[in-house]
């Protein structure tokens, strides 16, 4: 099999005239083990690779990709990208970035994980399933227990002198439990992600999934009220995803961001600092360079509630007369857009117990549903379904369900009162618990 970087170079070599040509190649092997009722329910192995070719000619952009191509097929892809470019509208901001020195990023790859055998992975899933169904009498079933890992590599080369490659590993566990009591059924979700299998907290994921299902048993629909809302990290992470859409320069330039005209303004409470950091090893989005070969970096998007700016790739940076922040995000099947690498809310100083005391009389929201359908990233309005627990006497009380929270992203950002001190990662989004001021929880 041809080397990834060699495949990329094969594309660059057939550039004609003033054309700019870039090839991005990826390969990945993944294993996933699903356990159910004490047995391995599913075992999936995968190997895949592919190359995407971007070609710019007279400001016109064309793209083509191919799965597991030979050198000849990569050259064919360049020809198809050239044909596609001929149809596109010229845009003076279309250009490939010049090569920049890339600092290596150590710690992305774990040899231990890459050399683990399936026989070593299966017991992880089985053990979690056994623990999840035996720690609480009300939790005897699971909806999903899964261990997964990936070993991958990426390479890029361009006519502008970009030559770079890296490899990385990742692993994750997901547990969804079912709690049952007196005809009532509740589900509990938990998830962990790490680069090295020894950093994966199997026990924590089980304890959390069991607890989150069991404590929701007997939930009722509450009366509509305006109360303090404490978002646990799972719930908070859903909102951060919506927020991130509006922080891309692409959304701003296309008038699809509510933050467009607000740079330099206090758009959120001063406890909120939001950072994108493509070199932070804790987050699964870390890499030495982005989807165009631009070095990744750290961008503080909100500093104590003040909006500093937006995330850029080469196109949006040229159009906005600034520098790329190293946020070109892509797979080999698509040309680079603008996206987050590791996006996180800088944790605060409160323990969970302190947050509960401050939210007295309110509700801990543990799950929100319909954020992507119920939140409009352009207008900022949202209305989502929520489940959680009442907070009383500094602790958690009666579970509540079928509530809706309706507000706007700007209002919610301003209402952030305090942040928990523990940062949790959900895929490439990191959040602590977030205490909001009073919000309307609509029930009966």
């Amino acid at each position, binding site marked *: 099999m041809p080397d990834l970087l060699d495949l990329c170079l094969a594309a660059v070599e057939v550039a004609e005239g003033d054309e700019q040509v870039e090839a991005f190649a990826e390969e990945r092997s993944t294993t996933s083990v699903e356990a159910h009722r004490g047995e*391995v*329910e*599913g*075992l*999936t*192995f*995968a*190997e*895949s*690779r*592919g190359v995407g070719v971007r070609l710019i000619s007279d400001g016109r*952009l*064309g*793209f*083509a*990709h*191919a*799965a*597991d191509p030979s050198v000849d*097929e990569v050259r064919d*892809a360049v020809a*198809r*990208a050239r*044909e*596609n470019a001929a*149809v*596109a*509208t010229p*845009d003076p901001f279309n250009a490939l970035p010049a090569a920049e020195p890339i600092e290596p990023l150590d710690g992305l790859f774990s040899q231990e994980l890459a050399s683990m055998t399936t026989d070593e992975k299966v017991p992880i899933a089985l053990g979690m399933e056994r623990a999840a169904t035996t720690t609480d009498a009300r939790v005897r*079933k*699971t*909806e999903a227990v899964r261990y997964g890992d990936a070993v991958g590599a990426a390479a890029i080369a361009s006519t502008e002198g970009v030559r770079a490659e890296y490899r990385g590993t990742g692993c994750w566990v997901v547990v969804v439990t*079912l709690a049952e009591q007196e005809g009532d*059924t509740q*589900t509990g979700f938990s998830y962990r992600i790490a680069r090295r299998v020894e950093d994966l907290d199997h026990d924590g994921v089980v304890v959390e999934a069991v607890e989150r299902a069991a404590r929701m048993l007997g939930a009722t629909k509450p009366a*509509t009220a305006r109360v303090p809302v404490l978002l646990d990290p799972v719930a908070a992470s859903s909102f951060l995803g919506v927020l991130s859409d509006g922080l891309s320069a692409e959304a701003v*330039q296309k*008038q*699809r961001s509510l933050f467009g005209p607000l740079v330099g303004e206090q758009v959120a409470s001063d406890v909120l600092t939001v950072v994108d950091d493509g070199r932070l090893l804790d987050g699964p989005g870390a890499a030495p360079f982005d989807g165009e070969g631009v070095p990744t970096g750290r961008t503080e998007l909100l500093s104590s509630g003040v909006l500093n700016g937006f995330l850029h790739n080469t196109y949006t940076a040229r159009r906005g007369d600034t520098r790329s922040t190293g946020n070109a995000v892509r797979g080999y*099947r*698509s*040309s680079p857009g603008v996206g987050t690498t590791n996006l996180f809310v800088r944790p605060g100083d409160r323990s969970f117990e302190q947050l509960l005391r401050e939210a007295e009389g309110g509700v801990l929201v543990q799950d929100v*549903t*319909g954020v992507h*359908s*119920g*939140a*409009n990233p*352009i*207008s900022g*309005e949202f*209305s*989502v*379904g929520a489940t959680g627990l009442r907070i009383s006497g500094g602790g958690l009380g009666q579970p509540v369900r*079928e509530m*809706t929270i*309706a*507000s706007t992203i700007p209002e919610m950002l301003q209402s952030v009162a305090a942040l928990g001190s523990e940062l949790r990662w959900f895929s490439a989004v990191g959040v602590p618990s977030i205490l909001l001021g009073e919000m309307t929880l*609509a029930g*009966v």
Partner: protein
Amino acid sequence: MLDRDLAEEVLRAARARGGSFAELYVEERLGTSVRLDDGKVEEVTTGLDRGAGVRVGHGTSFGYAYSNRLDREALLHAAEAAAASVGDGGPGEVVDLRTLEPPVTHPALMDASEVPTERKADWVREADEMARALGPEIRQVTAVYGDSVQRVLVAASDGRWVEEVRPRIRLSVSAVAGRDDTIQTGFHGPAGLAGAEFIEANPPARTAEVAARRAIAMLDAVPAPAGETAVVLAPGMGGVLFHEAVGHPLEADIVDKEASVYRGRIGERLASEIVSGVDDATVPNAWGSFSFDDEGAPARRTVLFEDGVLRGWLYDRLRAEKDGVPSTGNGRRQSYAHPPIPRMTNTYILSGSSTPEEIVSGTERGVFVTALAGGQTNPATGDFVFGCAEAYLIERGETTTPVRGANLIGRAIEVMSSVDAIASDFDIWPGMCGKDGQGVPVGSGSPTLRISRITVGGTGA
């Protein structure tokens, strides 16, 4: 795509250690997309994907391995990896492969890959021009055209050999309208299992008009009232709700995991007696249709609800074998990179006896939902929530002011039992359904229908 002798060799290797069956799935997909944004044909893309997956079943468990190489060495390697998950049984049988005839076909009249890319670029430009012509409020337009031809081969140890070519085509438009500080969006995206003739039947300008009018209409919207009220769902929308809240809990893997609110309740009345619903992969040229599912089972129509009574589950091969019933042809996968699981195809509520006019005029007070933005459901509890992309108040039997920020929240059985009127103006909406990280094309259909009481979440009084 693959020689039969090689397929048999791979299946034998996959059954080296037994298991209840072995299956080989080979896929090749060639697609073109044209994206217009901000007034420019931004990106034109061509892609070739291919790969093969080998599955070995044993009970409700399976081993699955895939590769995007199709050579003998890679396929045998995948077969070995999939077989490794089975215990140490002796070799299993592989029956001589024979071609199965499709129960239904969905022919493309005009091969989209023969249409010059320049023509496709014109389609998205036409959509952009029409949307912008509808008013100065239209600030931004995105038009995306995509076509693909998916070639599928399924060969299995029970002798099935199925080949199918699935042409898919879609042109969708998102419009952003603004007035002062108010911004609203509108989307419309017809799609079919068809060739380029589909674009003639669904002209880009008409798609753009629907999306743009939706965005403009919502500029006048007031905050939706919160609380319980009657909701009338426009054609297709009842199908979206039926798909999410009812369809998912009827998928046999969810039932098998005891995570379905409907488990053990076949034969019970769990919806209003005017509700009958089916899943149907045979609807001609519909987005969610096919000739065979991704396990080589023939496409069919499955009754889910009959006069409000629950009639059955949606099966793939593993779950059907466990329950000792035939597959309902609902084993689907996103691509060769995914093992098949029970999925819906085109899921819809059948027509009733009312008219849409009667339904609206007979509603004293409520919300008329003309477009849902998608939703989420918990199959174990039946709890669901849906966002509304376009909705209006109903006051004294008339559709009046548009409302924004509304969502519908409820529980599947209660809400389906509250359906008190169904018209016959049936329509089917295309969408992409996600489950276990796999997206597949589906259709959701219904006539206009009314839910007598449901909770609407909103910010208004």
